[in-house]
């Protein structure tokens, strides 16, 4: 083996330390925590307006000290003689947006829903209308995208170590059942939108998958949109995509982390997308230094051992690319474009 040139292979960080997580606030949403607050999983962070609309109120009613971003409530101030609300009926509270022409515009609505934090941590910043930033306790494994709402559950493996290639995780047939309600399921290489919908209906809290095709992503997001519009929402549900859009098994170092976390409480967060866990007792050994994974091209998803630089090589279609020798299990190493490789650290 030859470590020559492995620094020319992109390194993917497997697990990060404490990370800042963001919860988006829209105008009208009401934060329920303040900077410096310590929160635990399940703490209500904010009230989200589901039907935000603009309304007006006389500036005299609101008071001279009012600031954009502040909260206003009709109950706190005596009504003006001409009436505090002119255009709308029933608005008694909201977030002040701006004042023009002697009237304040405020964001208000009738239906709110509570958003809870799925992770423990310390609130770093609260900016009404923008975001709540939370420093999460524990460690995080990043994905490339996450859809749905931040969620929490017990990690369950619906996938096995693949046979044949002997690496990564592949979907176990018939692994979805109601017994998994409340859990976050690792399903392996790929999943269909229909299965995602079924998982949500069965009470699962989330799915971790290597890749999500564009069509499935679009269908799931449409389903999510309908779900958000419904009056009675189901529990939170999220999909964490680890790699991208093409089918490939979950990388073996990632699979090792997921297997270590099986049966433990984890959370999926959406901004940034990742799996957060607070298990200090679990020690994660670094993967072998020469382990590389092929993330594109002919051998996508396979793993092997770095054997050294191969120089510039001609590949299919007449493309010349810098390459490295990788032993992927055959009798001899094969030349793989350096840009198709990743290592883990």
């Amino acid at each position: 083996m030859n470590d020559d040139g492995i620094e020319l292979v992109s390194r993917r960080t497997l697990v990060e330390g404490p990370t800042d997580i963001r919860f988006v606030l829209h105008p009208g949403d009401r934060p329920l925590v303040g900077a410096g607050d310590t929160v635990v999983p399940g703490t209500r962070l904010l009230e989200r307006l589901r039907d935000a609309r603009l309304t007006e109120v006389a500036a005299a009613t609101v008071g001279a000290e009012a600031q954009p971003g502040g909260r206003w409530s009709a109950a706190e101030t005596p009504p003006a003689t001409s009436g505090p609300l002119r255009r709308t009926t029933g608005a008694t509270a909201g977030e002040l947006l701006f004042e023009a022409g002697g009237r304040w515009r405020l964001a208000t609505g009738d239906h709110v829903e509570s958003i809870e934090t799925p992770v423990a941590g310390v609130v770093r910043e609260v900016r009404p209308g923008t975001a709540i930033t939370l420093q999460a306790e524990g460690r995080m494994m990043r994905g490339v995208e996450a859809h749905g709402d931040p969620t929490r559950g017990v990690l369950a493996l619906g996938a096995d170590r693949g046979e044949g290639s002997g690496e990564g995780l592949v979907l176990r047939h018939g692994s979805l059942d109601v017994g998994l309600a409340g859990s976050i399921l690792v399903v392996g290489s790929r999943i269909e939108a229909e299965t995602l919908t079924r998982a949500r209906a069965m009470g699962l809290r989330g799915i971790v998958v290597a890749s999500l095709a564009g069509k499935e992503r679009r269908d799931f997001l449409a389903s999510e949109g309908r779900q958000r519009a419904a009056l009675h929402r189901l529990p939170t549900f999220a999909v964490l995509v680890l790699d991208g859009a093409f089918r490939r098994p979950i990388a073996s170092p990632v699979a090792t982390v997921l297997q270590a976390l099986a049966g433990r409480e984890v959370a999926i967060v959406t901004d940034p997308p990742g799996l957060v866990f607070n298990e200090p007792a679990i020690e994660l050994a670094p993967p072998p230094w020469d382990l590389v994974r092929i993330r594109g091209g002919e051998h996508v998803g396979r793993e092997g051992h770095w054997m050294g630089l191969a120089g510039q090589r001609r590949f299919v279609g007449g493309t010349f690319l810098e390459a490295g020798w990788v032993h992927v299990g055959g009798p001899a190493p094969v030349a793989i474009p350096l840009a198709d490789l990743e290592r883990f650290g």
Partner: protein
Amino acid sequence: MTASDPHAFLALDLGTATSSAALVARVGHRWRLIGALAMPAAIEPDAIVELVLERATIADPNLARLVGSDVDDAVRSLPRLTARSARPQRLAVVAASERALVPLDDAARRSGWLVTAASPERMEPLAVTRALLDPGVDAVLVRAGEPPGPDERRSLDEVAALVAAAARRRPELTIVLAGAMAERLERFEAAGEHRQGEVLLGPSATSGEPPGLPLRELLEDMRAPSGDARRSIAQAAGALADALDRRVEIVDIGFNGGLRATASPGVGGARATVSASYVANACLVPAEVDDAAVDRVLAWSTFPIDRHRLRDRLRELRLVPWADAAGVGARLRLAAARAALAVLIEATASQSAEAAPDLIVASGGAWAVAPGPAVALAIADVVRRPAAVGIALDHARLLAPLGSIPDGTERRQLIGDVVDDMLAPLASVIIPGGVRAGHSAGRLTIHAGTGSTDLDLVPGSLELVDLPPGEVGTAELRFRDTVRLGGRGRHFAIDVAGGLGGLLLDLRDVPLRLPDRPDRRRELLEAWQDSLWVTRDR
């Protein structure tokens, strides 16, 4: 230069997707490009530099010793010229009417910003507030006409109040007040004493020559105050025009945007004149691959693929821009580059109205993996003007680092030295306009050092004439009818230079017209491209 009188230096172009390193050394009495390498941006630049130096030493140990690139700490000790791409930023553009919004939107889109446009006619105040409070928005440009038009007066106060309130809530936002909105400065100054972001009075969106230029310059300064790779490339365009004494156009397509810089050489000791547009939407693949993005790439695809799969491929390309670059991956990149170039050309119509350049230089990671002649064809497909132009490639990505040299004289001198090394000649292209359909439009005779070649001019065809790099010749064209080729006429004699793709005689329509049926269009594009994909599997 960072060290006095060095014998060699490293030129680094650190983009969002690609990092490149080049070793430039003084050989004899001039600077020469010794070697270069481009790799994914995730790789440490020092590792790339180390490999460049190692290969240079293996290739010519004596030269390496002479220029000092073979010493142990050369990676750290050699002086560096570094250009970095500025991160993409979003500008919220707000006006009191759609009419007032148009010039603002145009100026913002041509100065490299991602744009969120808002007016009371387009969005309700709640949605505008939400857009301004979005943490992805870095600055706000708000404008009213001078004087405000009747359509603006009704909502001017409300727009000013809305933006001022957002400025108070987000003290880090930079606010630009343009036109009559400047009269409402007090409202913004009252928005907070402890603002980190500035409140700037901008020029009118229609002032200057060409209209909007001063505003665009201000926005460019805000987006990338100094050292941005694309702004450096624009500076290099001027130096290149002076060095070659030719009109030069640079088209740069990168991961997060495109640049079109046109430069004419200075006359009578004056410096070159440069006009540049930075278009964030002219990126290889947008961050969110929507239907429009899929359609744009599908229109240039040379391989069969359905919309869903193409969307997936584009998403993967966005996530890992260097992966899967062989085979179909290379053709996908070229289709995406054509689509991005079309966006760039459409957004810069005023530059298309200028005189045609003598030389088009392709730059940026989008062109990195396709063979040179295929890149020349891709540019000829999209940048179609009735003219004879040379097409070259900034293969070592030297334009940005060399353009970042602050001293104009030193910059011109250095670029003049290395110009033959840094530009790979791809092809000379002759594109006559107004060729009538028929069996034959005339005859072409090429007089070159190796002899003469005679060709029939067939309307709608793409003819390739072998003219290797370094060779020069004269193309004599005799048309049956009057055509446009620079000027109007029937007989033309044009000096042409060789390239990797030789001479392309492009008698296709200007602009290019393609069949409506996707399969026919794809077959036609594939046939043209295959003839120039010189390294394809046979």
